C-alpha cells in the first residue's frame, strides 16, 4: 500500500555519511551495483554498456563539490547520494499501483517490481534523484538499503551491513538504527551535528550527513603568526619548531 505507516516505524534504519572522511573513490557506488545487480532488485541493467552513451541503473552516485571559493581557496567535498529512506516520502504516496511502499517495521522504502507499471511518477516526486528507472525491465528501481543483505542469516553477522558501507575504505559510511539513541549512527549524528540535505522540502530523510570538520586551514592564521616570529631563525630552529608544533 502506498499509504505511509500509521505510526512511526519502531526501527528507523539508515546511513550516516561522513563528508569529512569520504575520499570520493566511488567504491560504495561500485559495490552497490555489484551486490544489487545480483540481489532482489537485480539485474541493474545497462544500455550500451561498452559503447558511447552508456547509461544504466545505479543506486548510489558520488558527486564532488567545491565549497567556499574556487581553486586553492575552496575545499573539495565528495558527496555520495543515494535514497535517504525519508519519513515523509512523496515517492511512495504518489505511486498509483502500491508498488512503492515504506516498511512499517524498519522504515525502508522499497519497490515491488512485480507490481510496478513503470509510470516514473515516483522519480518525479523525489527531490534527491534517488530513483532510477530500469528501461530494459520497464520498472522503477531504487536503493533497498541492501534489505537482502542486512537481514541475511546466511552471512556472518559482521557482513550484515549495506554493500556501500562494507566497501567504504575510509569508514565514511555508517549503518544503523536512528530510532535507537545509543546506536553508532545516532551518536555520530548527535556529536557531529548530522543534518538533512534539502530540509526545506519537508521529506524528513532518515539518513543523515555528517558535515566536514573545520579543517587545518581554519587554524591557518595562528600558524602564519608562528611562522612570522621565526624570521631570521636558522634551518635547525625551524625544524625544531615544526616538530614541536605538531
Amino acid at each position, binding site marked *: 500500500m502506498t499509504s505511509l505507516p500509521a505510526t512511526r516505524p519502531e526501527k528507523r534504519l539508515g546511513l550516516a555519511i561522513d563528508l569529512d572522511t569520504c575520499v570520493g573513490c566511488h567504491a560504495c557506488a561500485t559495490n552497490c551495483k555489484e551486490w544489487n545487480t545480483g540481489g532482489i532488485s537485480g539485474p541493474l541493467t545497462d544500455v550500451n554498456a561498452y559503447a558511447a552513451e552508456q547509461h544504466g541503473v545505479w543506486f548510489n552516485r558520488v558527486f564532488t563539490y567545491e565549497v567556499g571559493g574556487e581553486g586553492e581557496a575552496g575545499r573539495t567535498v565528495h558527496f555520495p547520494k543515494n535514497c535517504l529512506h525519508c519519513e515523509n516520502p512523496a515517492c511512495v504516496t504518489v505511486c498509483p499501483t502500491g508498488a512503492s511502499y515504506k516498511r512499517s517495521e524498519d522504515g525502508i522504502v522499497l519497490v515491488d517490481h512485480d507490481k510496478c507499471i513503470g509510470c516514473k511518477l515516483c522519480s518525479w516526486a523525489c527531490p534527491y534523484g534517488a530513483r532510477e528507472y530500469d528501461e530494459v525491465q520497464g520498472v522503477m528501481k531504487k536503493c533497498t538499503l541492501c534489505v537482502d543483505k542486512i537481514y541475511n542469516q546466511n552471512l556472518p553477522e559482521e557482513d550484515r551491513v549495506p554493500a556501500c558501507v562494507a566497501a567504504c575504505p575510509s569508514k565514511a559510511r555508517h549503518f544503523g538504527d536512528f530510532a535507537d539513541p545509543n546506536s553508532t549512527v545516532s551518536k555520530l549524528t548527535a556529536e557531529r551535528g548530522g543534518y538533512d540535505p534539502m530540509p526545506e522540502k519537508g521529506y524528513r530523510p532518515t539518513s543523515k550527513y555528517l558535515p*566536514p570538520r573545520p579543517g587545518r586551514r581554519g587554524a591557518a592564521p595562528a600558524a602564519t603568526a608562528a611562522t612570522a616570529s621565526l624570521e631570521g631563525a636558522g634551518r635547525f630552529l625551524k625544524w625544531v619548531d615544526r616538530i614541536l608544533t605538531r
Partner: protein
Amino acid sequence: MHPAYSVIFFTTASGAGYGLLILAAIFAVGGLLPATSLLGFVVVGLALGLIGGGLLSSTFHLGRPERAINAFSQWRTSWLSREGVLAVATFLPAGLFGIGWVFLGKTTGFFGWMGVAAALLAGATVIATSMIYASLSTIRQWNLATVPVAYLGLGLMSGAVLLAVVTRLFGVHTPAVDVVAIASIVIAWGVKLAYWTTIDRLQPTSDLGTATGLGRFGAVRLLEQPHTEANFLMHEMGFVVARRHARRLRSLAHVALFALPLMLTVAALWAPAVTAAVMAVGAVGSLAVGLLVERWLFFAEARHDCMIWYGR
C-alpha cells in the same frame, strides 16, 4: 522535464474530450441541443473517442502497460490512481447518456441525470490529471494553484470550440455555444497569462547550498559530476532543449491557442452559415496546434529539484 509525446497527446486530447462531454451534457440536458440520433452520436462519440484515445496513448508512456490495471488501486493517496478511477467511472454515466441520446432520443429524465453525472465526473477527472502535476513539490513550475485551473479552463475551452464546429456543421447552432467558447477562451487566456507571469517570477527555494548542506561553508559549485554520460535523471528531468525557444513558443501559443480561435469564433457570429462553419473548423485547427505547443512548454519549462545536484 522531458515532454513525452504520449503524455502531451493524452492530456490535450482527453482534456478536450472531457470539456466537450461537460458542455454537450449541459447543453443537451438544458434543451439547447436537439435530441437527434446522429448529432448525439457525433458529439458523444467525438468526446468519448478523444477521451479513450488519450487514455490509450497515456499507457504508451508506461514501462509495463500490460499491468496498467494496478494503477486503479491506490486512490487513497495517489492523484494518478484517482485520475484512472475517475476516468473509468466517467465512462458509465457518459455511456448511458450517449445511449439515451443516440438510441432513444432522450436527453432528459434518467438520461439527463446521467449527463449531469458524466459532466461532474469529467470535471473531476481533469482536475485529478492536473493534480498529478500540481501536487509535486519537487517542480516549482507545477506546484501552483493555477495549474488545475488552467487544465480545466483549457479543457472547457477546447470542448466549447469543438461543440461550435459540430453544431454549425449540423445546422443546429445556437449563439450560447459561442458565448461559452468566447468566455472560456478569455478566461483560459487570462489563467495562462497569470501562470506564465508567475513562473517567470518564481525563485528557487533550494540551491546547492541547501541541497548539500554545505552552504554554511560558502558558495558551493559542482566540481565533478558522478558519471560522464547522461543518466535516467538527466534524460527525464534535465530537459533543456525548449527553454531556449520558450519565448517564441509562448508567442505561438498566444496566437494559435487563444488569439486566432477567439477572433474566428467572434467573427463567425456575424458570418453567413457556410463561412461561419469554415471559421469554426479553422478555430479548431489553430487551437489544436496551440494546445500541443502549450502542453509541450508546460513540461519543457518545468525544472526539477533533483537537477540542482548536477549544478543546473
